[in-house]
């Protein structure tokens, strides 16, 4: 197992201390909200990175897993009075099962066909939820208001507990991603990314490891979905099952640097504050100018800095050596 370099450990500790201390130092609802969104999308980026960054399966349908997570815990809570924490795990399991069901037959679909298949899958899920009476179709579900507390996964007076919960979930996903990247599976996935045929020739079960990656990714994304439902307390297909969320998962990873553990976190830390702040400053009138800037940013980054921020930093490191 590869050991971490001292500066990497120092960086991890510094990042952890800074994020734990943040809500104690900075007071106010908006900064906390922005940070929660950063962590939420960092987590989804980490999940996307496991399949997209390591195994080069560029999914544009991860929002389906996000939606499945959000809906599972909410429906369990509303109809069967199941605790959201159990719903969190149940949503993850259901999403992983859905990922296996869709991923297995799709296992010989590659590159662009795969990307489009994921969009098609997510769109089918969206259309289904939009017309499904059992989950109130397009009306959406409002979560019942329970007494606040950790046990109910619900807080009304402050956002700080949400902040720590999502931070813990993000840390958990990072550990999973790190574990994958240093064990056999990570090497297998990277081998598959470099060359399908060679990996197959070396005896790597291509179908099985691709499927594992998709399922783990789906599980983490679904947990993010449950968190979102508990945080916003209202879900409908137009807020948890739309294509832009999938795109966001891809973008944070790409901006930060795909295939590296910290990439999605860096990407989310840059992109989410920009999008939240431009939305609040410029988007209040629905002028579209916030999304315009966002689109331009994506164009320019991928055209002129395609390795992402992490790639840029490491390339500086190599040059100075």
């Amino acid at each position, binding site marked *: 197992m590869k050991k971490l370099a001292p500066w990497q450990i120092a960086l991890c500790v510094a990042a952890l201390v800074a994020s734990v201390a943040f809500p104690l130092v900075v007071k106010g609802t908006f900064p906390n909200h922005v940070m929660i969104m950063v962590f939420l999308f960092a987590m989804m980026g980490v999940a996307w990175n496991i399949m997209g960054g390591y195994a080069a399966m560029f999914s544009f349908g991860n929002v389906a897993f996000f939606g499945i997570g959000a809906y599972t815990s909410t429906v369990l809570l509303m109809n069967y009075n199941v605790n959201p924490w159990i719903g969190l795990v149940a949503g993850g399991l259901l999403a992983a099962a859905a990922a296996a069901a869709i991923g297995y*037959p799709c296992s010989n679909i590659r590159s662009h066909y795969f990307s489009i298949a994921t969009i098609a899958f997510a769109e089918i899920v969206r259309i289904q939820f939009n017309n499904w009476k059992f989950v109130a179709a397009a009306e959406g579900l409002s979560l019942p208001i329970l007494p606040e507390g950790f046990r109910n996964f619900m807080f009304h007076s402050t956002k700080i507990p949400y902040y720590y919960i999502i931070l813990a979930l993000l840390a958990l996903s990072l550990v999973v991603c790190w574990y994958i990247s240093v064990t056999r599976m990570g090497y297998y996935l990277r081998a598959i990314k470099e060359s399908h045929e060679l990996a197959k020739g070396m005896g790597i079960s291509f179908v099985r490891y691709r499927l594992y990656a998709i399922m783990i990714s789906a599980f983490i994304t679904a947990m993010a979905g449950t968190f979102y439902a508990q945080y916003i307390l209202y879900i409908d297909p137009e807020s948890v099952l739309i294509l832009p969320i999938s795109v966001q998962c891809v973008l944070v990873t790409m901006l930060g640097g795909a295939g590296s553990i910290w990439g999605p976190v860096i990407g989310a830390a840059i992109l989410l504050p920009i999008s939240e702040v431009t939305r609040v400053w410029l988007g209040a009138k629905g*002028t*579209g100018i916030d999304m315009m800037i966002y689109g331009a940013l994506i164009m320019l980054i*991928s055209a002129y800095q395609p390795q992402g921020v992490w790639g840029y930093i490491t390339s500086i490191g190599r040059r100075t050596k």
Partner: protein
Amino acid sequence: MSEQLVSQLVNGLLIGCMYSLIAIGLTLIWGVMNIVNFAHADFLMIGMFTSFWLYTLYAVDPLYSIPVCAVLLFLLGWVIYKFIVSKVMTGPGLAQVVVTFGVSIFLANLAVWLWTPDFRMIQRPLLHGTWDFGAVQLSVPKTVASIGSVLFSAGLFLFLRMTKTGKAILAVEMNRTSALLMGINTEKVNALSFAIGTSLVGVAGAFLSMYYYIYPQVGGTFGLLSFCVVALGGFGSIEGAFIAGILIGIVQTLGGYFFDPAYKYAIVFAVYLVTVWIRPQGLLGW
């Protein structure tokens, strides 16, 4: 009942021809550059708005704005290729996938900013009303648009087979390295095919503006459908995209007829998933 079925079939065929024209531009770009142009349907939207504003401001009928749309979108495509897409051609795979997503978000929201997200319609185009054939009633603009789509598709097909430039494009599509060794300027071929692709979708936009709502997010549905059409037809295959476009149009209307109209797009996507499952390279791909 069967009369209704026939008219549904005809409607599917008509909308399918439209999908074909949109998709052949996409498949050309995909085939030549191995890039999925996610902004393709946003060029469609720009074409529709061009036609709308020409009609509203200068009273030019959509039928006459077709050449304007073709030229304007050709230039826009060329510029986007030169300054954005060409930069990622040698870059990592992920950048190639994401770059056109950025273009798409940018164009759609530029339209929101400039023209508000409202739905618009061309009130009285030159072509309107219906032709009555007893059992089937054909909407005049839809029929003309579909015939026009078929003509433009055939035009592209002939251009690629008959002219030297067209053959160069096909050569690059088959094997980029060999084409380069044969002295073909692949960079120019890239730019040209991107511009031709956007130009065709601009023409489709002018046709579509005769009978469809015009709004900044119109690209969404058309974009997803045209990806399915292209992938169903097969990687870079013009003929495949043409056939698949008509198939998808028919599947969509029949799906809406036999099941629930709310699910018509879900059925199209399911057909796509089943097809790539059985034949990962699409119908006419190799």
